């Protein structure tokens, strides 16, 4: 197991992503953050805190569970549903920023786009991820990336967040030689 991001690096990456979100959207008005549970939800709360501090505002933030929209439901045992909280302002005409921890095949994000489709019609949908590990299976890309980490499919990338894992770190497991 090797650590590819430590706590300080995660904090700096999230701070940079927060600035980039503000830059791309010309401020925080009409921007809404939706974290994909479990860890994407914690990341979105952290990014919201950063943005609120920078802009002295209170950005709407929610969570979006994509379990019901997965394309692999038939291949695995049933999954527990995680909470979906859409801010009361709704997503219509907003710039929705989806936030997830690890960006891999792209299937989670495809499911998230389907879920958003049921809820409303955003002005735009953007994607922020802490780690992009490659191996896309769908034509989907991220707008904001904490760190690109080239991996092989045999490896597994784990994001640990202090909210549930007692520490902040990103690790890679199963790498051939260390």
């Amino acid at each position, binding site marked *: 197991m090797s650590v590819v991001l430590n706590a300080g690096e995660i904090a700096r990456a999230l701070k940079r992503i927060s600035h980039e979100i503000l830059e791309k959207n010309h401020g925080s008005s009409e921007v809404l953050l939706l974290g994909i549970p479990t860890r994407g939800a914690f990341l979105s709360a952290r990014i919201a805190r950063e943005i609120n501090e920078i802009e002295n505002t209170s950005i709407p933030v929610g969570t979006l569970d994509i379990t019901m929209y997965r394309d692999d439901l038939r291949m695995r*045992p049933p999954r527990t*549903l995680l909470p979906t909280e859409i801010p009361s302002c709704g997503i219509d005409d907003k710039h929705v920023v989806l936030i997830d921890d690890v960006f891999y095949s792209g299937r989670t994000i495809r499911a998230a786009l389907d879920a958003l489709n049921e*809820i409303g019609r955003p002005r735009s949908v953007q994607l922020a991820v802490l780690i992009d590990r490659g191996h896309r299976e769908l034509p989907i890309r991220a707008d904001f990336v904490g760190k690109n980490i080239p991996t092989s499919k045999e490896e597994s990338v784990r994001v640990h967040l202090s909210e549930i894992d007692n520490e902040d770190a990103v690790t890679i497991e199963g790498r051939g030689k260390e």
Partner: protein
Amino acid sequence: MRHLLSINDLSMTEAIEILDTATELSRLSEGAVKKFPTLRGRTVVNLFFEDSTRTRISFEAAAKRLSADVINFSAKGSSLSKGESLKDTALTLQAMGADAVVIRHGASGAPHQLARQQWMTGSVINAGDGTHEHPTQALLDAFTIRRHLAQGSGDLQGLRIGIVGDVLHSRVARSNVLLLQKLGAKVVLIAPPTLLPVGVEEWGAEVSYSLDSEIDNVNAIMMLRVQRERMDDLYFPSEREYSRNFGLNLERINAMKSDAIVMHPGPMNRGLEISADGADSPRSVIVEQVANGVSVRMAVLYLLLSGSKPELSSTLEVGV
């Protein structure tokens, strides 16, 4: 979990998982999302050998909100009334590709038969069999109690639930006793001795013959329908006397704890086990139970059907 035949099949963890899933689904259905694509292409058959309105409609609504295809198969006006055996019906449903069969049958154990005999690969969901069990009703009742009295999460530790009336003929009562106790609640059965089944002391619930002595000591009261269609004998002297001793009226509701709720699985006999003003009182959550039923059945269908599908065992002779 492949079938839902009896509350006994569920561990406490599985029961709580169903309730948690239902909580999430009901929050979503109240707000943003009305329909999920989750079970698209799956077929749910409602196989009803006994009359039912709310259970069948509830399962139908639940399946449709998950985008499953629903086929309603009721005994009246079908080959079932021509004397087709359960086996032949099952083989027919298998050939049509049913992924789940929701079965209501007058004979206790019919859903077990359907599930155990391996006539079909689909999941079997017991929607009421004879006087045996009605697990989804118990789940929706537990869901309703949890929402009102346990802040919508966790188990039901520390609650005391009264179940009143025709326990003898009630599959709802049996499933509820099993489930509520599994979730940590205490149950007291309140009924005249003639309407309690033999061996009720083995259910683990308290038994009382007086509603008035228990009414101020329960967090929820569940009124059972007097099932006249199953009564082959005289179980109480008169309806007036039953109503006077075991009917829920406004006076008794006012004697309940201030946050206690009134429940009824429906259909109600207004004026017999519950008075009209009792059924319509602000304490009554009877209409909400119906709405919760859809969420709970969605959770059950999701948990049974969204996973991978087992193969028919090779030793089986089907489709001859």
